């Protein structure tokens, strides 16, 4: 669950609950979307997708092809020719799904090869994925294929790797909303080592992106079933910031570790009762530092800081907690010492990393 859906005690907000109820209602009548994601063309997405359509057709589902690529490898063409098609209408050289005809035909399942087309000006909808949205809304299931480079949020990354990115795209949120995402993985076959490097980077990104989608689905599933469990499939590092802690070093290390694990970074602090003006400004400074490291920042309330931290960690599936160890003498040392002991004693299922100061 994203942190912004939680109130300060880590419970779900009414807005979040409402969203879930609405999502459940939508899901009941909506068609299911399954996306076949590849990292480049030629990895066999279309084949996998049409092969599934063929098998579902053989098992008695009512399947219609609404969009196929203009040129297909023989094995794909063979399957497509055996299935019923509602051909896309070509306007200005651009194939547009015949949404009205599909709606009128009302199949159980519709196949759309290539999700990222822009429809020509004057079309009912500007993008093909919006046509797909109409089909889903009407309760028709959709199988669709897509390459990583066509996800809008990946354009910058793809341009960084290959030098170019397509003009067309599908928003990440559309992929996130899919009921199922399949990664079609094949090792890169490249003529040059530079090209192999590019393909490898795209492949890694496609795998991690799908893993993230899967992770969010897992969370949603567990949440729906009231299960709270740290699965640790993705590393989530939370840096605990206290006004006096050296947050700079912990945040920098947290960022580096999160990056190496392709994980997430969180930064939390607990509002202490009666903070001094110095405490307040130190805290503000730490929050700025944490934002600069692109951490999810949360301020927790509570008389029991350790309890609040641990509850937050459980709710957010934290796997590693970074804390500072204050070695200065005096009552604060004794306090810090005992708090640290309690944290270590009670942080079941978490790694606690103590930083020197």
């Amino acid at each position, binding site marked *: 669950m994203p942190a912004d859906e939680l109130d300060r005690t880590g419970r779900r907000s009414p807005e979040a609950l409402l969203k879930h109820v609405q999502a459940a209602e939508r899901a009941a009548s909506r068609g299911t979307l399954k996306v076949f994601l590849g990292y480049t063309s030629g990895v066999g997405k279309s084949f996998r997708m049409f092969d599934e359509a063929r098998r579902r057709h053989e098992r008695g589902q009512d399947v219609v092809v609404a969009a196929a690529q203009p040129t297909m490898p023989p094995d794909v063409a063979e399957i497509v020719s055996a299935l019923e098609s509602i051909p896309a209408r070509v306007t200005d050289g651009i194939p547009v799904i015949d949404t009205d005809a599909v709606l009128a035909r009302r199949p159980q399942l519709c196949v759309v090869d290539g999700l990222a087309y822009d429809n020509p000006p004057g079309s009912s909808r500007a993008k093909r994925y919006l046509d797909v949205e109409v089909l889903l809304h009407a309760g028709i299931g959709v199988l669709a294929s897509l390459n990583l480079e066509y996800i809008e949020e990946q354009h910058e990354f793809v341009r960084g790797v290959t030098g170019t990115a397509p003009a067309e795209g599908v928003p990440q949120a559309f992929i996130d909303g899919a009921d199922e995402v399949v990664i079609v993985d094949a090792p890169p076959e490249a003529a040059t080592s530079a090209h192999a490097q590019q393909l490898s980077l795209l492949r890694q990104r496609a*795998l991690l992106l799908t893993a993230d989608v899967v992770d969010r689905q897992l969370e949603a599933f567990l949440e729906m079933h009231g299960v*709270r469990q740290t699965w640790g499939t993705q590393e989530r590092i939370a840096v605990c910031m206290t006004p006096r802690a050296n947050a700079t070093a912990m945040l920098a290390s947290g960022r580096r570790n999160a990056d190496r694990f392709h994980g997430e970074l969180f930064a939390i602090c607990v509002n202490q009762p009666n903070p001094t003006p110095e405490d307040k400004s130190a805290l503000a400074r730490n929050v700025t530092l944490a934002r600069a490291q692109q951490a999810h920042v949360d301020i927790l309330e509570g008389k029991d800081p350790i309890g609040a931290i641990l509850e937050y960690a459980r709710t957010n599936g934290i796997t590693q907690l970074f804390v500072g160890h204050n070695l200065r003498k005096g009552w604060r040392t004794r306090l810090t010492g005992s708090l640290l002991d309690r944290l270590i004693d009670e942080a079941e299922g978490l*790694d606690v990393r103590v930083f020197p100061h």
Partner: protein
Amino acid sequence: MAGVAPRGRLKVFLGYAAGVGKTYQMLTEAQDLHAHGVDVVIAYFEPHGRQETIAMTDGLESVPRRAMDYRGSTFEEMDTDAVLRRRPHVAVVDEFPHTNVPGSARAKRYEDVHLLLEAGIDVLTTMNVQHLESLNDQIWQSTGVRVRETIPDWVLKQADEVVMVDLTPRALLNRLERGVVYSPERATAALQNFFKEPTLVALRELAMRQTAYAAETRQQDETRQAARTDMAVRADERLLLMIDPSPASAALIRRGRRVADYLQAECLAVYVSRTADLSDLTPDERDSVERQLNFARGLRIESRILDGEDIAQTLVAFARLHDVTQIFVTRRTEGRMAALLKRGLVQRIVGLAHDMQVTIVADRSRRQTTRA
């Protein structure tokens, strides 16, 4: 031709459960190679009674398996010597993490595969992500299944290619219900154990991350080779794992190995004893420490025993001498008295190691499932 054949290439088809199509995809590739005139043989294939998969072996040569008697039963294993004599260009070896029946020349199938690779034979093989050693505790925690047949992470790291074989959990569960994966009675049992949707989703996510990680490390290796930097990369971090006789140490070692791999850090393990001959331990504890140290060595962690009157001081001095940046210790010790002593020890280590990080590792050898 003179000289030694170059090492064969290892390609792993990685999945997350039985029935996702690993073997099918591997055989598809074998058929493809065969069609292109490459000399491919099936060195080991596990049919599991799956007709579509069995059909994919049509037209491919198989090297007969070797029958082995063990305790009155007959087991069939890959006949590694026969494959070596046959000397194909590519060998198909199903189920990479398999443990050979006792009495075999090698304990593990991956050791047999190693021999084939050394002989210059390319190998295609299959495995599920849950068999990876460093994930063992995590898998146990989330599924309640302790996977016994494990593969050390460095073995998978030697693969030239790791390909993810993906099938959505829903599709897999459909296949299971249709009886494609297992016989009906096995399917019912499987649905109650491993094949629960959240479990499958979690394993699938792990497989994706593992595949991405494999691609990333492979690419880094190639970049290094291209730059012709023969020098080992100087790790900017060094981890020191503090082993004790408790069972939690195995989880500490696995976790340490995994963190070290991801951080590209070096990793050491020590047991600190008050006496050089471990005479302060009971025979059971001594065995346990030896087992843990050997387990660490099996994961390619340099391991040794230190001795010193003051355990915390000995540990931290060693760490400082070896430029350790992070010390890993276990969290819990059984028994109240031991727990208090342990707490004191951790406190002392944290206090002494003022120039290092100290990580108190979660006890992943315990299960904890809570309902909200």
